[in-house]
């Protein structure tokens, strides 16, 4: 008897479920960053808004990358429902605090998936997830650096102006 299961449903159910959970998380992150962008935009923090619009796009790309992977493996990719995002923040710093919390939660979840792939000896998915592990190093670094700018500059009006000037230049250079 032909092994139809292996031919047409490459991944184990447990791996499919955990990737679908990650798709939902990325979708939620994208929506949350959009809410942060809106908060910054209406308060005149244009560059911070741009930063979060870009982040929102990034998370959407992550979501699609995972989604396409499941489709390519002929597994069920589930388009997620997304809950409400936080739209109210006290200060600009608080927005960036939330962003870092988000990134840490996403990193934990990615590491959990890698753990599961090892449990089921799913070498292909583990290899696929390596890109996300690397990506999260970058995302966390940028979120942390942004917060450190507040420590460096303070939070008065002039400092916030300086923060705005710098935020779009925060990037991860690996070895640098």
């Amino acid at each position, binding site marked *: *008897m*032909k*092994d*139809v*299961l*292996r*031919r*047409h*449903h490459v991944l184990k159910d447990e791996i499919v479920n955990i990737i679908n959970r990650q798709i939902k998380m990325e979708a939620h992150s994208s929506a949350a960053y959009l809410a942060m962008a809106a908060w910054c935009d209406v308060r005149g923090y244009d560059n911070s808004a741009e930063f979060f619009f870009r982040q929102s796009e990034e998370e959407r790309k992550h979501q699609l990358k995972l989604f396409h992977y499941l489709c390519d493996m*002929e597994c*069920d990719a589930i388009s997620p429902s997304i809950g409400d995002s936080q739209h109210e923040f006290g200060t600009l710093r608080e927005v960036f605090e939330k962003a870092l919390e988000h990134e840490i939660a996403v990193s934990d979840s990615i590491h959990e998936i890698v753990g599961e792939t090892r449990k089921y000896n799913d070498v292909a998915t583990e290899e696929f997830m390596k890109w996300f592990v690397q990506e999260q190093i970058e995302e966390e670094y940028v979120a942390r650096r942004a917060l450190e700018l507040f420590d460096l500059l303070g939070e008065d009006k002039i400092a916030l102006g300086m923060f705005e000037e710098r935020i779009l230049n925060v990037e991860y250079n690996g070895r640098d």
Partner: protein
Amino acid sequence: MQEEIFKTKRASIKQCELTDSFLLTFEREEFVFKLCDLFAFRKKIMALDLIALLESSAPDVEIIHLPNCDRFLVLSLKEILEFRELLNGTFNTLALNSAVRRIFRRNVFNF
């Protein structure tokens, strides 16, 4: 060529070797599924809330729309249980076959 994968009292699932599809027979009715549709069908059957069905004042039946075709099934509680047994048995057999085939594949290159 079709091979029977699992059978219950009134239903059975066969695998077609030529088309990689599955033939579900139930009360002389036949339904053809691709593997992804069989997964979707199993998901629907397993997601049914039997307790709620028992507790409701409505008749104990569920209407299940079959994936990727314009047919549906009206299943009683007993039939839902039979379908669960059928689908669990089918997927366990497929997983077992997959494990056996994996061992055979080691000899494909015959080094």
